[in-house]
């Protein structure tokens, strides 16, 4: 390491590794992991999100989970929460659908209306 630019490179990489603790999140993905969600494959859905995000090197996206969401007929249910925009809830998710949501919604910023089961706060 010889310059401040070298240090900056290390810093950016290290910040990426610490992003869960930091505040610079653009989109938060909340997977419903109640008992029925898990039974319907919520863990697979979450895993696919994690993999897709890692593969695409999306540094400002965060995956977390929550309990029962009261939409049990549509499990697995996933919320996408973006600063300054209404929350979008997708239902009946599968790993295939997750891939599409990642490309369309998270990368290209277009809601995948076919899977949406609710919007708003």
């Amino acid at each position, binding site marked *: *390491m*010889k*310059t*401040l630019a070298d*240090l900056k490179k*290390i*810093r950016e*990489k*290290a*910040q*990426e*590794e*610490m992003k*869960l*603790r930091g505040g610079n*999140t653009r989109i*938060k993905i*909340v*997977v*419903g*992991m*109640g*008992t029925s969600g*898990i039974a319907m494959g919520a*863990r697979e859905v*979450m*895993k696919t999100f*994690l*993999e897709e995000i*890692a*593969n695409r*090197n999306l540094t400002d996206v*965060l*995956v*977390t*989970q*929550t*309990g029962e969401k009261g939409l049990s007929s549509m499990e697995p249910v996933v919320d996408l929460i973006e600063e300054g925009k209404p929350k979008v809830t997708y239902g009946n998710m599968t790993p295939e659908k997750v891939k599409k949501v990642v490309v369309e919604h998270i990368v290209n910023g277009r809601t995948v209306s076919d899977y949406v089961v609710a919007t708003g706060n």
Partner: protein
Amino acid sequence: MSLKRIDLLICCGSGCISAGALKIKERFHEVLQEKNLANEINIIETGCMGPCDYGPVMVIYPEGTFYKAVSPDDVEEIVNEHFIKGRPVARLMLQDEENTFSTQKEVPFYQKQVKVALANCGYIDPESMDEYIATGGYEALGTVLTTMSPQETIDLIKKSGLRGRGGGGFPTHIKWQMVHDNASDEKYVICNGDEGDPGAFMDRSLLEGDPHRILEGMMIAAYAIGANAGFLYIRAEYPLAIKRIKLAIAQAKEVGLMGQNVFGTKFCFDAEVRTGAGAFVCGEETALIHSIEGSRGNPTPKPPYPALQGLWGKPTIVNNVETFGNIPTIFLKGAEWFASMGTETSKGTKVFALTGDIKNTGLVEVPMGITLRELIFDVGGGMTGGHKFKAVQLGGPSGGCLTVEHLDVPVDYESLKERGAMMGSGGVIVMNDTKCMVNIAKFFMDFCVDESCGKCSPCRIGLKQMLDILERITSGHGKEGDIEELQRLGEAVNKLSLCGLGQSAPNPVLSTIRYFREEYEAHIRDKSCATKVCLDLMHFDIDKSRCIGCSLCARKCPVTCITGSREDKYTIHQLDCVKCGNCQDVCPVKAVSRIPGMHPEVITKREAEAKSGNHHDE
């Protein structure tokens, strides 16, 4: 890139480790393995998070959920509920009468705190240099080395108003300027991590929780004064701090952040750790320098000041761990930012180790100028067990006690000093109304007598005389004139001692006399300790109207000085009682109580002994 979705930060500061943090960490590893979640969850060992009393504590990101007093048996539930189902475990959260505080940000303990030196402590993995760099680490060093001259560096510290955090509050820039101006082929930077005050753990926590910050601060100082070698003096009782600093030095050297031509400049620096044997006086800067040189850690007169003739006779700065800990942030955020916190003469923040009879004991950092009331009642959470606040001791064995009437005094160097206390290095002991102030003064005096190096007679002899008087007073042999004698001795020892240990050792006695004189008088004249702490100045008594004659106390008395019968009830023969307290502990109807004051029979006996010359007056 990782698949991690949760950062689990487990506090592995010394408080939480002694409460079992390492077992919990192991258990998490096991359970996460079992459930195949190890690649989704990061387990990170951090330094002290602050609220040590609630240990083991942990914080779970991204939400920032705060759990306290976690036991290995809770781990499975945390994993199942929180990590898998996303339902945080409410019963492990901090609660008060009305609220449950789910995240660390909400916990009241943190709310009046401002973390500068402690910014990363409890937030990063102290063994990862990358995490330090992620928080802006080494940016200040790089900027200073590549864009500022040594004089500009000192000027910026001057503008910030930073004063030494090791106790004295000496302006940091003045020391640096002296060494800067003093041309020499070799100069040294020393980091004072001796921390010998009883109950203090600020510097230890910083060294353990954010070691690179201290190294960065030292290197900026080295550049400013023109030194290229430094020493960290850390007591041997702090093995984890020593290990972490050594690791940090190795990591910094490996990538060239320490060593030759740092950031491609002419600046070269090497640091070494020296361990101290743990004598309190070795924290005094001249003693510390001798100890590093390999001779006995005894103080020598100043002048010559270390700035002119320090380590191996070369110009040297000695700064406290926390002083260095502030430096990188001052350069990152600016001198104005730092000077905007605090009072006219005391800028920035101060780290305190809060201990004693308060709810939230632990490690805190607050802006200078905060009142003692806020520190004790808001940050510290107030007194435990419904007791009343009585006094607060700041500055350990060198400091003084303040009382209820001082609760609105702002915490700054001058305000505390004016009132006979001092900022000190940050030990704060809060005491409730069950504490005897004479006894507290005796405790600190005892400590100083033990720690005196014995080199100069005012300290060696004077402090011992003061201790003897205090022992006399607390054992019921105090006499008129003792208070004045303590004051006379205290002032003499203060004026004539060679080093700060002797000069400040009388402070606890003088300040308790100043604010609790009536307690000393009651001990001496009335032979009474109102708090019933001094055993010679209280007695046990049985309330016959309550006693049911069960004889339990009589059977448990080690000197069989309780007699009686079911009909006559039981009585204590006061002359033989050794004040063990068994009778009070075993009585099923609470008929035995502690009464302030020496029992009249004992007073009469002692007076008779004194007359017949039987008593050896110490």
